């Protein structure tokens, strides 16, 4: 149950970030504001890229990324205007800027979005952008940065968003997943040549929400990582035993074994190391799991009390 609630919360938050602007406008009952996004690209310390965006529903999302790891800090912009932003990422910094147009409007073409070219107004933001990640894994502090206000025709056809295509559902040959409140872990093994950099993709997602405090909007942090690895990290030669040893930022090993009670136990010391925080365990007794062989079927185990 707890797992389902967490999954529902994550889905709801993702939906908030992605919902079409028109729907958001109706929901907030403030007429029909234009579907506008403000995007700001920054360079953080230690090689991290930082992208700040404000969506039509006035959610501010600060994304930090490097080598397959992405961290997302989401809160609310307290100002209603598309060209002004004021938001506090409690404990991490603030974004308080005003957008100034600079240059002509562009209509860039996007692959797969023929006929749906967005309107992009380049410019700069001036004010304060300050962000310091957990344990200072990265930081940025600027008073001016290049920016753009984008009006997409469809939320899928966003110029500033970087959608990285993932291998199709039909190409995996075996997969394993587990989840608990706050995290989801997936390992998919593919036929050789389907993905770049190996035959296995490891994906971990975590999410946590800090509730609204005295007048401050809630803060949500998503962390996710997706890394390719060689087939040798996904050992499933025995039909009832699986061993996963994904590469960094994962650490340790996870094993799925059938116990004498015929329970499929997912154990080991597998964890994921996101920047600035302690490793998050991804294995342990009592976790539910789902292990599937494409041609054969699945072994499912419900979560149970430890």
């Amino acid at each position, binding site marked *: 149950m707890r797992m389902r609630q967490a999954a529902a919360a994550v889905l709801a938050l993702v939906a908030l970030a992605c919902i079409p602007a028109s729907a958001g406008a109706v929901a907030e009952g403030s007429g029909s504001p234009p579907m506008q996004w403000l995007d700001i690209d920054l360079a953080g310390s230690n090689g991290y890229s930082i992208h700040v965006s404000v969506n039509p529903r006035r959610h501010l999302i600060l994304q930090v990324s490097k080598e397959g790891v992405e961290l997302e800090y989401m809160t609310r912009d307290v100002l209603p205007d598309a060209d002004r932003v004021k938001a506090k990422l409690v404990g991490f910094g603030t974004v308080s800027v005003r957008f100034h147009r600079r240059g002509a409007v562009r209509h860039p073409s996007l692959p797969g979005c023929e006929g749906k070219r967005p309107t992009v107004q380049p410019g700069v933001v001036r004010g304060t952008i300050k962000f310091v990640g957990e344990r200072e894994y990265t930081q940025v502090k600027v008073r001016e940065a290049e920016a753009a206000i984008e009006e997409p025709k469809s939320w899928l056809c966003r110029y500033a968003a970087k959608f990285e295509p993932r291998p199709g559902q039909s190409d995996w040959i075996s997969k394993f997943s587990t989840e608990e409140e706050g995290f989801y872990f997936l390992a998919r093994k593919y036929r050789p040549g389907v993905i770049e950099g190996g035959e296995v993709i490891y994906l971990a997602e975590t999410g946590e929400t800090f509730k609204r405090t005295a007048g401050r909007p809630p803060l949500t942090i998503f962390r996710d990582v997706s890394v390719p690895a060689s087939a040798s990290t996904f050992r499933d030669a025995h*039909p009832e035993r699986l061993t996963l040893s994904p590469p960094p930022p994962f650490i340790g090993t996870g094993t799925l074994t059938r116990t*004498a*009670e*015929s329970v499929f136990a997912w154990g080991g010391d597998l964890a994921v190391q996101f920047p600035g925080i302690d490793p998050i365990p991804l294995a342990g007794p009592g976790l539910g799991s789902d292990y599937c062989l494409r041609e054969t*079927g*699945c072994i*499912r*185990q*419900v979560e149970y009390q430890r």
Partner: protein
Amino acid sequence: MVAVGLVVAAVLVLAAGAGQAELRRAGRFDVQRALTAGYLSLGKEKGYQLALSMPNAQVVIFSAVRTERLQDERFSGRYSVYVTRNRGSLERGVVRARFGSLGRVSLRLRPSGPTRRSDPRSGCEGGLLTARRGRFVGHLSFRGEGNYFHVASPKGNGYIAHSPRLRCEQGKAEERPPRSLRAYAAPNFVFSDEQSIALLYASTHSHGRYVGISAMHREESRPGADVQLKIVEPRRGMVTGHGAFLDGPPGTLLTSRPGAHPATATLAPPAPFYGEAAYSEEADAWTGNLGVKIAGLSLPLSGPDFHARLCVVNPLRDKDGCDFFKTEPAFIERPARPGWMLR
């Protein structure tokens, strides 16, 4: 608590299922014979829900059912049914039966309120169903073996229902009731062994008494095993059936893994069971001190008289689990099930 409902339903189905009239094929229609059935709720005694049911005019069943909630949302239950012939005329509202040395009933329904009438079930026609509610008056006494319950009066509400002969579309008529009393004393198991990936079954049959115990772990389920026991035996003019079922905690059933030979298993369910038993494929033996205390009886559930079988499958190789596993010898009490065959 689904199983609680199931066992109650099992007892009721036992009553209802047995009370259905014989069918006579008539072209595209089935004829369902007239049927009279009755029921008397006797309330609770020492934790047992007691009832007298007449699934048809010929059979009387005394039932005692007890269910309990255990820790961690687990549950257990036990039941006893005593089946004998009705020597009275149910059509005239009379139930008269002897349950050996355990008890006897001599009752007559005293109706109260109007007779209720209702249409026959969908797909059938022929007349209205009638039900007379009221109180049964007369003599009723019953003492469970070892005095595990005792009831001495027919207090409680009851009814007698009558269905006229009906013409039903093919497949809509009630199934033919069993002729033998033994069939009424062997209700369906509470737990289905479909989707089990570990299933242990042990049974014995001697001097007319059948004792069978099964334990299974269903695919995807939490640690633990579903255990159920069924005992059926004839006793001077009646047939008794006793059973127990429980959602056992971790450690109840431990087995070797699929493909491991010789296969082994141990079964150690909690009360009303005691002790544990071990199965060895190598020795083809079911040994230990496993037993059960039920309905005033204390019975061993292991030993050389028992026939034991074990099925442990890999869900990736045997998608249907152990449901294909034909464990029992020919004298089983288990009702036949479609698709129940060896592969």
